[in-house]
């Protein structure tokens, strides 16, 4: 031992080496415990992965169907957005889209025209919201609406048609192939009515969309409403590696010269959503807590048994000059190493399962039937591979295992060497 002995005669390195050697001495016990911890950690990682997956999926749904990552409005539009005004528009949308797409961090931009309309089948007339989407431009790059088509097909560029929310379609009892009349007031204020065929139905899981929205090609909406090249909003999607705040700042500075525009990030667009996400996290915390407790008890038990078994050995070590603190360190280290091992195996197993889980997901409809929770999660559950989460759970297991070993370690260190030596 070259270095100066510390804390009862043991350096950290030596402690770890001793711990490791002790664990290897009783391979079977070590492996059994490590396996228990591994399985527990695996379950924990999968649960965390599911939770993060749900969070990401609902966030993704929000971004992919409603908000994009950010939206550009004409100044003054956002506070009045419930009224669906057509008199506060972004003029020359096409130009603005080009400028936005040139900004680093922005992967696509798409104009949308959101307008108040009535849908009629001749018998009944229902007020709803119409959205004109740019089929030739970035609509499918910014939003993922085609994913949500539940019947029929998505809209085709150049062919006027309707994509109707599933709830709205149910109200009229229409299917793809039926015709509906869309009535709306043009921007200047004249009535316009178009008969359009329903080409498809959408179910995004978000009742706001499914029950009261329909989609038409942007060209159709623009002509119908005499928008003259304007749009009510331009939605922007960021690149996968782009930092949200940085890109948002860049967009704002690029558009700073135009006094008539306002840029809002998705978190500002959907404040209520975030509150809900937080609530879910807390509710799940309690469950994870129980799992953690169970996982760690396995380690504690093992270390305790080890203490009992090696009473004599401890007595010898103490007789040879190892002080209480040193004894404690060894056992705590053993516990920590056990935790580390188990967490390593468990995490590796979990990651192995997470790869197909995150790619193919779990089919929820088989379990639950269709869910309409007013909560944007659809019928497949995808796990998420989040490095931070994996690391945190691993570290937590190590720390808690060390912690759990503390009491047995204390007991070990409190023994009197003489008594210990007499133990059989």
């Amino acid at each position, binding site marked *: 031992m070259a270095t100066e002995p510390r804390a009862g005669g043991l350096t950290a390195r030596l402690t770890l080496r001793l711990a490791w050697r002790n664990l290897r001495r009783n391979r079977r016990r070590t492996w059994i415990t490590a396996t228990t911890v591994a399985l*527990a950690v695996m379950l924990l990682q999968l649960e965390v992965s599911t939770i993060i997956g749900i969070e990401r999926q609902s966030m993704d749904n929000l971004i992919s169907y409603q908000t994009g990552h950010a939206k550009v409005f004409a100044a003054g539009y956002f506070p009045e957005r419930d009224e669906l005004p057509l008199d506060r528009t972004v003029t020359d949308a096409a130009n603005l889209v080009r400028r936005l797409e040139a900004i680093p961090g922005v992967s696509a931009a798409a104009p949308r025209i959101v307008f108040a309309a009535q849908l009629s089948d001749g018998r009944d007339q229902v007020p709803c919201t119409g959205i004109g989407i740019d089929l030739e431009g970035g609509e499918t790059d910014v939003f993922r609406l085609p994913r949500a088509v539940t019947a029929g097909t998505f809209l085709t560029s150049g062919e006027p048609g309707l994509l109707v929310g599933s709830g709205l379609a149910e109200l009229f009892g229409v299917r793809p192939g039926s015709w509906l009349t869309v009535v709306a007031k043009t921007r200047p204020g004249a009535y316009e009515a178009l008969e359009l065929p329903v080409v498809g139905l959408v179910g995004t899981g978000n009742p706001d969309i499914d029950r009261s929205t329909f989609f038409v090609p942007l060209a159709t909406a623009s002509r119908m409403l005499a928008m003259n090249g304007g749009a009510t909003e331009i939605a922007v999607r960021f690149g996968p590696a782009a930092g949200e705040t940085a890109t948002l700042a860049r967009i704002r500075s690029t558009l700073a010269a135009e006094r008539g525009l306002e840029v809002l990030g998705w978190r500002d667009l959907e404040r*209520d959503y975030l509150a809900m996400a*937080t*609530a879910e996290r807390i509710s799940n915390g*309690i469950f994870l807590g129980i799992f953690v407790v169970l996982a760690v008890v*396995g380690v504690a*038990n*093992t270390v305790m*048994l080890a203490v009992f078994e090696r009473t004599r050995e401890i007595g010898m070590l103490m007789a040879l000059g190892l002080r209480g603190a040193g004894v404690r360190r060894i056992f705590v280290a053993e516990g920590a190493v056990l935790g580390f091992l188990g967490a390593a195996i468990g995490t590796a197993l979990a990651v192995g399962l997470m790869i197909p889980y995150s790619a193919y997901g779990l089919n929820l409809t088989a379990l*639950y039937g269709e869910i309409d929770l007013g909560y944007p999660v659809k019928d497949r559950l995808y796990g998420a591979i989040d490095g931070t989460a994996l690391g945190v759970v691993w570290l937590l297991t190590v720390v808690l295992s060390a912690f759990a070993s503390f009491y047995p370690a204390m007991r070990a260190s409190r023994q009197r060497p003489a008594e210990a030596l007499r133990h059989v």
Partner: protein
Amino acid sequence: MSEPRRKVPFLRLAWRNAHRSVRRTALTASAVTVAAAAVVFGRGYMRGALDNISDTFWRTETGHVRVRREGFTARERSLPAYLSIPGAVDLARDLARLPGVRAAVPRIRSFALVDGAGANRGGVLLGLDLALETDFWRPQGMLVAGRLPAQGRAEALVGEGIARKLGVGVGDSLTLLVQTSYRSLGGLRVAVAGLARSGMAFLDNAMLIVALDQAQSMLDLEGGATEVLVFAEDADDTDVVLARVQEAVRGRIPGGAEVRAWWAQSQLMRLLASSDAMMAIVWGLLLLMAGLVVVNTMLMAVMERTREFGTQAALGMRRADLVRLVVEEGAVIGALGGVVGAAIGSAITLYLGVTGIDFSAYSRAMALPFSPVVYPAWAWADALGSVALGALAAGLAALVPGWRAARLQPAEALRT
């Protein structure tokens, strides 16, 4: 040479063995204890959380049984007052007298145009019997400013969100315009008595709560309401209550009645069905984990006694008996641990079941429909189950080392 089969007093032996090393027994049992306590509490918490959700749904949306006029729900998008229940208040009083019914609550829901300080918005008008609803809708729990509207006064409790959009606060006035039950125009000027936060965005951005009589007069619905919610004494008896309500309502509503139990409200049914599946999954996971911990500990504890088993084998104990001895010992320890664990878990669950777990500090605005306090619900089946399963798990866990010990030659065993 076959000997006559000796009668081995297994249980007594098992018991005695367990007592021989209290420390080891305690250690093994502790694993079962923690597992049992976790299972009892876990199930109790889950049940409490689900009860919370379904309770809130019942209280605010569907009751256990909901009575409406035929056609209202089909047109729910516009909340048509002309499809309301005349005489709903009397009907509610009669329904409340039915056996098994705890209360029958008349409610009015309607759209209103809200005009205040120059801005106007669409809102949802909620007419509540404020005295009765302290147990059901519980508006007092949503109050964040001012006070509740007083019965008989033209006052409203306004959702925070819509108040902000209209630019009004406590003390200001609002004008409400509605379509009456005669499809005519009605309205009322109300004072903002208080502001409310339910945690549900769609409510906070639209709701206006007024006393039932105010809503009735606004909508030309004297004595009427758009729905009556019936609450059973026991939610599990809803099917019986449903039949009684259907009978009692016959002929009393022009155009026919629509009487639905809560499970027919598809949203809620799906939620609870999914929760059953989730409960089962969580139950399974908890058991699996608990079982693993127990197996782990048992394995280690028993494997250390290989020598002892070898001795017994050398003394003539048959292998099968040895295994049985080990298993029963495991089961005994498991049962002991399970009892202690179930007791601890039950104690925690029962205690928290009374005080509740308060989440409100952690989430200012929860958009899911449950109140911020969860009361874990204890069930004796959970406690009993965990004891039984503790014994089972420990016994099963002891099988492996038992077999191993039994297979060893006595000489080998003695050498270890």
